[in-house]
């Protein structure tokens, strides 16, 4: 556990319970608690109530209803949420998808199946950057 991960909570957004369980387990080994949402609508409902408790969002792209692109857009266009780091984790490995998400403000983009070591490094990096921005804002 590092300073950036201590007390951190992640929101995992994925329509697959397998993916949510696996991500939650790897986050747990990083000392990061997590909550889960099964799609974009559930994620936005959760963030409307608990945004202050969430340090990072791990967001799938292909989901029923509100997909990852639309969810990312909603987060980045909301003044209360836009500073939240969003890491896309997706089996869509086309360059165009990666570029689209990064241009929309995603902090990072990880392919599936994800490498737990890389996941850990990118989550820590996002949390450290968020912590720095939060400190600057105080």
């Amino acid at each position, binding site marked *: 556990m590092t300073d950036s991960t201590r007390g951190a909570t992640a929101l995992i957004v994925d329509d697959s319970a*397998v993916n949510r369980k*696996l991500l939650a387990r790897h986050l747990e*080994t990083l000392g990061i608690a997590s909550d889960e949402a099964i799609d974009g609508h559930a994620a936005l409902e959760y963030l409307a109530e608990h945004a202050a408790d969430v340090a990072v969002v791990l967001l799938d792209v292909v*989901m*029923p209803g509100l997909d990852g692109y639309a969810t990312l857009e909603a987060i980045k266009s909301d003044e209360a949420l836009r500073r939240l780091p969003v890491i896309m984790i997706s*089996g869509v490995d086309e360059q165009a998808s990666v570029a689209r998400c990064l241009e929309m403000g995603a902090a990072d983009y990880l392919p599936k*199946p994800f490498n737990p070591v890389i996941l850990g490094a990118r989550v820590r990096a996002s949390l450290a950057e968020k912590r720095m921005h939060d400190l600057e804002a105080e």
Partner: protein
Amino acid sequence: MSDEAPLLDHAVIDELRDSVGGDTAFVTELIETYLAEAPGQIDEIVAAASSGDCDAIVRPAHTLKSSSASLGAARLAQIAREIELAGREGRSEGLAQTADSARSTYEATVEAITAAGLRL
């Protein structure tokens, strides 16, 4: 070709187990979660294929692809990838047969998982 990938890639399962500190119980739980989810995804794939709905087939194929790959169900992951690609490219010809292949491959995968002692 799809038949070249193994039903179960044990190296993937071993790597998964190692990545969670050797927690066999967690791997078993994950596999049971997969076995609870996959049939519904396959039903969606078959339904979309039977109506030639390329748009509707993409999401369940995509989800089945990634969860199958994560758990070493390599052949099913490969078939799901082919279905997803066909859906994205609007290629409905032969989709029904490929969807049926996904179902039969899933059933064979369950047998392989059971034979490997990976179930509760």
